[in-house]
């Protein structure tokens, strides 16, 4: 019975009595517990900030699916974020829906929009696709201002502040934080399942070599459209959450700069990763404020500089680079145990 190829899992078989997989679960649960406890240790304002971080993380996760895993660049995700936000706002404001019931419609509307967009986008590549998505970002504020009987036009929609369930005894900010946390975890789980499975492999194959993928029988059009739809659905859900948390939507909230921020956050976090989305969310939320502290004369210059430096240092993004390091670490362990096993080979 030959050992065959030494698998990294075998090499890293046991740490203190538990397998690597089990350790990963423990680590994840610990992080989740930490995240759930965090809002009770910090002030309301910081809870609010962290909630925004998670919302942006969900939006960036959507973009990662499309641009990172499927290779279709999008400069227009701010538009889908707006669509989700306004769907939720209109449902709450006009039709009196409770906030938690707006998430699914927002997701569905944005999924449909994404598919609608994805179909013509099939024809385009590279800078042409960038233009088509850019058009979405630019058209969104115009459309929002035009259909003002629905959207409130430039005045926007002021929403009634969401109240936490009465029995729990926590305040509004913390309740919303926990709601968004749950949605984030679900989104990450769903994304992971999709991306680590067949769909994800099809996405990556299409990104890396579309002709070979088609030759292997992958329905390129179907998967590309699916990527668009799931991506925009996630970003739309993030938009709906943002409407709930900020209690206000207006066309100015969804400028071209928002779309660019998502793209930048995605690249900085790690475009083809899931955990990178959280880094992206942190970047989008905190770096502009930090830039302001460093220089109030030209804060965006600092922000731009931060982008450049991060791209030089970590072209694969933070999560991408960390992932690369881990891979190297694991392969080194594998080769070391390979040598151990060599002695036993017949």
């Amino acid at each position, binding site marked *: 019975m030959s050992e065959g190829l030494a698998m990294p899992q075998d090499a890293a078989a046991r740490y203190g009595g538990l397998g690597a997989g089990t350790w990963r679960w423990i680590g994840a649960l610990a992080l989740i517990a930490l995240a759930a406890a965090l809002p009770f240790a910090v*002030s*309301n*304002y910081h809870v*609010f*900030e962290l909630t*925004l971080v998670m919302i942006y993380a969900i939006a960036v996760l959507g973009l990662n699916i499309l641009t990172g895993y499927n290779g279709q660049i999008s400069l227009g995700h701010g538009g889908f974020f707006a669509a989700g936000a306004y769907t939720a706002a209109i449902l709450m404001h006009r039709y009196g829906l409770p906030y938690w019931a707006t998430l699914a419609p927002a997701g569905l509307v944005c999924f449909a929009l994404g598919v609608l967009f994805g179909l013509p986008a099939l024809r385009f590549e590279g800078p042409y696709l960038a233009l088509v998505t850019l058009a979405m970002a*630019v058209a969104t504020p*115009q459309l929002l*201002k035009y259909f003002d009987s629905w959207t409130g*036009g*430039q*005045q*926007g929609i*002021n929403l009634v*502040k969401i109240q936490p369930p009465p029995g729990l005894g926590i305040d509004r900010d913390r309740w919303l934080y926990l709601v968004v946390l749950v949605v984030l975890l679900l989104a990450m789980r769903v994304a992971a399942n999709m991306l680590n499975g067949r769909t994800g492999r099809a996405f990556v194959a299409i990104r890396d070599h579309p002709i070979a993928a088609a030759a292997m029988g992958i329905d390129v059009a179907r998967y590309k459209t699916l990527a668009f739809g799931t991506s925009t659905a996630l970003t739309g859900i993030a938009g709906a959450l*943002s409407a709930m948390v*900020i*209690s*206000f939507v*207006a*066309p*100015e*909230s969804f*400028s071209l*700069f*928002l779309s660019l921020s998502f793209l930048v956050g995605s690249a900085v976090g790690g475009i083809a990763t899931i955990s990178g989305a959280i880094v992206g969310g942190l970047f989008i939320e905190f770096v*502009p404020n930090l830039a*302001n502290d460093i220089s*109030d004369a*030209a*804060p*965006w210059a600092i922000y731009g500089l931060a982008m450049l430096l991060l791209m030089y240092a970590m072209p694969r993004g933070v999560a991408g680079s960390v992932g690369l390091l881990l891979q190297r670490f694991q392969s080194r362990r594998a080769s070391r145990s390979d040598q151990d096993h060599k002695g036993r080979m017949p």
Partner: protein
Amino acid sequence: MKVKHAVTAGLSAAGLILASSLAAFAAGQYGPGVSDTEIKLGNTMPYSGPASSYGIIGKVDAAYFAMINEQGGINGRKITFISRDDSYSPPKTVEQVRQLVEQDQVLLIFNSLGTPPNMAIHGYLNDNKVPQLFPATGADQWNDPKHFPWTMMWLPSYSIESHIYARFILKNLPNAKIAVLYQNDDYGKDYLNGLRDGLGDKASKMIVATQSYETTDPTVDSQIVALQASGADVLMTAAIPKFAAQAVRKVYDIGWKPTHFLNSVGNAVGTVMKPAGLEKGVGIISAAFAKDPTDPQWQSTPEYKEWLAFMTKAGLSANTTDVQAVIGYSFAQTMVAVLKACGDNLTRENVMKQAASLHDVKLPMLLPGITLSTSANNFDPIKQMQLQKFDGTTWRLFGDVISGSGS
């Protein structure tokens, strides 16, 4: 001996009581952000992003408060002015204002810029009873003391100005056909709606064409051409300087000679009339409430010289052609006047009370005759403007100072 002791004891006790009550009186009542030596004010401004040209207002505010501090502060307290960048994005405004109120513990929010940003924080500030004073926007909704008792406006509302134009048109040009160029946002639409409102039931007959533009449009030439084609003989332009200048120029270049009303936001001599071509703006009518720093008629006055000296000392001499800097100066002076009137009672309630008790307050860089007045039912300090006509060099004021009816 005992009597002497008793008297001494009695006198000392009385002295102690008197001294401590005097001290308590001097200490006053303080809201958040106030101490014996400090008053903390919060502000958000677009220092970055598409509206960053308005950031000068925040810079002028900061410079003015620094100057007041150098002169000893307000009743012995220095102003700490914390101004944060919101890039004109409402979610960011909410974030910054929450930080100012909850982390920095400021007394009030002063002079935040933009209608959407202020709308985003409107509810939050009123719910938390934090004064939202003198936002830098001319929308009407900030004058609503019944529903929003913590919000007070300052700028004459955009609709007051278009009401003034409407009345002029109804009186002097009753058969006019009016075309309107407006910026496609709350500011431009307020002007358009104000004009409609001011014309009353004649509006639909008189307004024959409207064209809007986005701030991302490179020029408004196409819109002007379209408006001319409507056959209108009156044009109202509600545009910011860049597009106002383009409009003035294009109207002249295509040989169109309407009676042209130019909004006060876009009428500065140095940044609009001159780039457009001084001869192209002759005859244009506008309204104003503040002195244009590039208008020769004000440049010899002592008030202008004082303002200019202030700007130069503050390192802002590059902005001395910008009327926004004059307006920022006036905003800051109003804030200082309100805080002074509070004396040692610097609670949020008293601040609102003093702000609602302004009687004919004069400011040096406002047009002569224009004063600030507020009351418990009226949170609109500046309701007056004056009409002026451009003569190729300067704006000639004519008529009387007019009071608008506002909302």
